[in-house]
């Protein structure tokens, strides 16, 4: 490792970051238990079992040097190194630090930004096609000039193009993008090892009207043969998600393949992510819109480095755990956040509003599954507090104040003078996409996403399983064929309940297991949302399983689990909490006439936040505006109830 170089590099990149800020401101930047051993036969005992029998953990959102907003600010790791790292090999980070994952990921989607894909790499290679364009020649020469000023100017050139939504390579888009796209798809094929490590081909479409985040990652179920028949859709082509859906439909028609999109960071959309009106026509969303949205976007990324999107304290004032890794100052544009934007930004509220839309339109436009992922721009998918390599290359671990103090959001002051800044220290070491599948293959993982049998974690590899049905009893929870019973007599996460037998309420079988190398569990909660007869939405949180002998208070809330975190040592102990929690819970206030959803939230005991590990390791001062310890968690996709 060349620490000497990395220190200067951070200083150099600082300026670039500043420029990146201008860009982002002025435009859009960027096991189940297998069945019972039965009659003591244990070779190939379950050939008939068709249900998903285990969880695979991965990241559907990783950038490499091929993303221009990563490659132009110090990221040099490309797709191959990113795959090698994710499958468990040691690599050298962008700043030269040897880095390895404690446990490999099961799958990875490299989702580089479509906008001038691979520009930094092509500059580095003095690519002849790049040099054909006057603009390409100029940005190439600026970068090669090598001064900080020139690099800043180069980045500005690209920022301006993004802002104007005018592709600087107009007329040669295909010649520029195709070789890079083919390298990306080739790398995916090279590292895809069914049964051990799955690669899914993808890209990010970086739409952000006025800096408001409408980004979507597009995931292909297919291999290189089909994916190579198209080039990624970019912000230059369109910034309206409805056009993206058209593009996706055209891809499927042309190739016979399958593709889905995963939006993220509603918290930086200033109310646009789950809007009541369409983006371009600004007309109220209708049944057709709802159908298309759910056809193409079955899953939403609810937690990642740029903040947690489950809910907001202002939306869920009775939720003691709502104030978690919050990014609510604004978007990438200059406009600061207004409270009225919040309901159209957060997952739980979208689920609630979706019920109202379903009542009105006949189709729920927000009936999506949820996952977590990192959105790391370093080629390194690191989602845990004790191994967090930051959002961009310049913020890799070091004692440089830039790692905490860099401004990520709000680099340009809000016109009304309100505080709109969010700093690097507020970046969240998160998240993980967990999918229930039968095998670790591209098809099985993509299919799990498409049917929403997925959940989000904020970095830990918690295992959570839930089944909802009308005739479950507490006894089913202990059955050795728990999963088979769950699928036969009920539905898993992502499923839908309807037609209750008279007088029956939905009951839920829930099992949660902590990360084998992680923190114990504090509690399991069921979060219920419903639409009352008057058309008003509600939410209620039920503590349904918890560790130890705690007794719920009069308000039904179980008291806090305690906190074993030693801030100075950045350590914790599993002396509190439980390694697993399991329960059967039946909705005590079910009304068969009302639409509802139920999802499970599992909370770990408090553990040190990444900033606390940093303070210990580098001897830097602990920041005061982020907590020293946090409770990592998992959120499942809901099970919905619809009266018919």
């Amino acid at each position, binding site marked *: 490792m060349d*620490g000497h*170089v990395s220190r200067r590099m951070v200083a150099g990149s600082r300026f670039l970051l500043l420029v990146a800020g201008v860009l982002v401101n002025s435009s859009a930047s960027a096991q189940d238990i297998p069945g019972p*051993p039965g009659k003591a036969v244990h*070779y190939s005992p379950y050939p008939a079992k068709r249900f998903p029998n285990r969880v695979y953990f991965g990241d559907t959102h990783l950038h490499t040097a091929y993303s221009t907003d990563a490659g132009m600010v110090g990221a040099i790791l490309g797709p191959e190194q990113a795959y090698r790292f994710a499958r468990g090999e040691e690599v050298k980070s962008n700043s030269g630090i040897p880095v390895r994952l404690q446990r490999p990921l099961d799958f990875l989607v490299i989702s580089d930004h479509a906008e001038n894909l691979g520009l930094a790499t092509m500059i580095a290679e003095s690519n002849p096609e790049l040099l054909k364009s006057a603009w390409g020649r100029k940005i190439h020469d600026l970068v090669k000039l*090598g001064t900080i000023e020139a690099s800043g100017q180069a980045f500005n050139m690209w920022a301006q193009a993004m802002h104007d939504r005018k592709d600087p390579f107009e007329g040669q888009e295909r010649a520029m993008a195709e070789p890079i796209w083919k390298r990306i798809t080739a790398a995916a094929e090279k590292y895809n090892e069914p049964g051990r490590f799955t690669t899914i081909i993808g890209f990010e479409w970086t739409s952000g009207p006025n800096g408001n985040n409408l980004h979507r990652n597009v995931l292909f179920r297919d291999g290189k043969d089909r994916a190579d028949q198209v080039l990624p859709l970019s912000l230059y082509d369109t910034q309206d998600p409805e056009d993206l859906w058209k593009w996706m439909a055209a891809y499927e028609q042309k190739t016979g393949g399958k593709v889905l999109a995963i939006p993220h960071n509603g918290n930086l959309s200033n109310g646009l992510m789950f809007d009541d009106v369409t983006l371009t026509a600004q007309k109220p969303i209708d049944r057709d819109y709802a159908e298309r949205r759910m056809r193409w976007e079955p899953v939403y990324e609810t937690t990642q480095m740029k903040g947690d999107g489950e809910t907001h304290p202002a939306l869920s004032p009775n939720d003691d755990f709502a104030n978690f890794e919050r990014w609510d100052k604004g978007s990438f544009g200059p406009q600061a956040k207004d409270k009225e934007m919040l309901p159209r930004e957060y997952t739980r509220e979208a689920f609630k509003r979706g019920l109202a839309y379903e009542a009105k339109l006949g189709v729920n436009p927000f009936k999506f599954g949820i996952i977590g992922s990192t959105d790391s721009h370093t080629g390194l998918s690191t989602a845990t507090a004790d191994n967090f390599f930051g959002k961009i290359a310049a913020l890799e671990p070091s004692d440089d104040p830039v790692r905490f103090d860099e401004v990520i959001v709000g680099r340009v002051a809000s016109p009304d003078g309100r505080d709109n800044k969010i700093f690097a220290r507020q970046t969240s070491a998160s998240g993980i996409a967990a999918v229930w599948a039968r095998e670790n293959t591209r098809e099985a993982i993509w299919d799990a996403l498409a049917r929403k049998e997925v959940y989000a974690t904020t970095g830990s590899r918690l295992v959570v399983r839930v089944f909802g049905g009308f005739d479950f009893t507490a006894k089913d929870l202990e059955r050795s064929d728990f999963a088979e019973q769950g699928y036969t007599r009920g539905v898993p996460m992502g499923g839908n309940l309807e037609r209750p037998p008279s007088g029956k309420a939905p009951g839920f079988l829930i099992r949660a297991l902590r990360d084998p190398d992680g923190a114990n569990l504090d509690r399991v909660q069921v979060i219920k949302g419903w639409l009352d007869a008057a058309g008003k939405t509600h939410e209620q949180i039920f503590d349904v399983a918890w560790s130890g002998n705690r007794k719920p208070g009069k308000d039904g809330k179980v008291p806090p689990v305690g906190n074993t975190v030693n801030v100075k040592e950045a350590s914790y102990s599993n002396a509190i909490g439980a390694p*697993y929690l399991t329960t059967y819970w039946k909705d005590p206030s079910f009304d068969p006439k009302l639409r509802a959803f139920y999802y499970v939230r599992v909370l770990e005991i408090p553990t040190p936040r990444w900033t606390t590990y940093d303070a210990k390791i580098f001897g830097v001062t602990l920041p005061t505006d982020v907590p020293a310890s946090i409770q990592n968690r998992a959120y499942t996709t809901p099970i919905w109830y619809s009266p018919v």
Partner: protein
Amino acid sequence: MRFRNIVREPLLHFLLIGLALFVYYGRVAPSDNHRIVVSQALVDDLARQFQATWSRPPTDQELAGLVDTYIHDEILYREGQALGLGRDDVVIKRRVRQKLEVMSEEEAARTEPSDADLAAYVNAHPDSFRKPATVTFEQILVATKGSGADIARALASTRSALEGGADPGTLGQATLLPSHVEGSALDLVARDFGEQFAGQLESLPVGQWAGPLTSSFGVHLVRVSARRPSLLPSLDSVRALVAREWENAQRKRALEESYRRLRQTYAVVIEAKLPGTPPR
């Protein structure tokens, strides 16, 4: 003993090779641009940076590695500069190095491996391609916590239930840990049960309930029903994987080779006192 340690010190080898090369190429006296001085201040700075990242001083070997990387970067950077690329920004310095590396790699990537190349590569790196040993087992999580006596009681009652013919799937704690694992590699078992548990599986007898085994979840009884030893697959079944690794090795070799050639034209002067070097 001390002499032997010194003789085995890679840095010494490095210095001796450097010296030999210096003598060999002495006739072509390197210009100032082909002279790299590793000063004490530089080495102290490298060590300080390492300490800041890892909260400990580098070992002698690590320090030698840091110096080596510095020289490597510096040479490729100067070569790039000589080609008119880049000046003084470190991001650019990296890019220049990357460009030179890409140029060498492209050369390497043009070669297609023959079957003989791939077979030779597998023979030279069998561990990279060996299919891991797999194990098929059932497990019962008997207890998660409690006193030694509680756990002993739980173990005894589970064992006697098993002897009485009880269905193992109905015993122990109902968690999301698989009660039956079919033909799984040990490293994949470790992803579910943790390293500690997976490590203990290897020594268990086949065909009988054994244990207790400890995991981060608690205490387990385990019955291993089958094992498959690790085996080296046929080239046909892993051709794509071997080709990928072969190609990577070729790239790496091309980089090393091109660096070695350049390195020969530089005089590297280590002024700093590095640990493991004989006093001057």
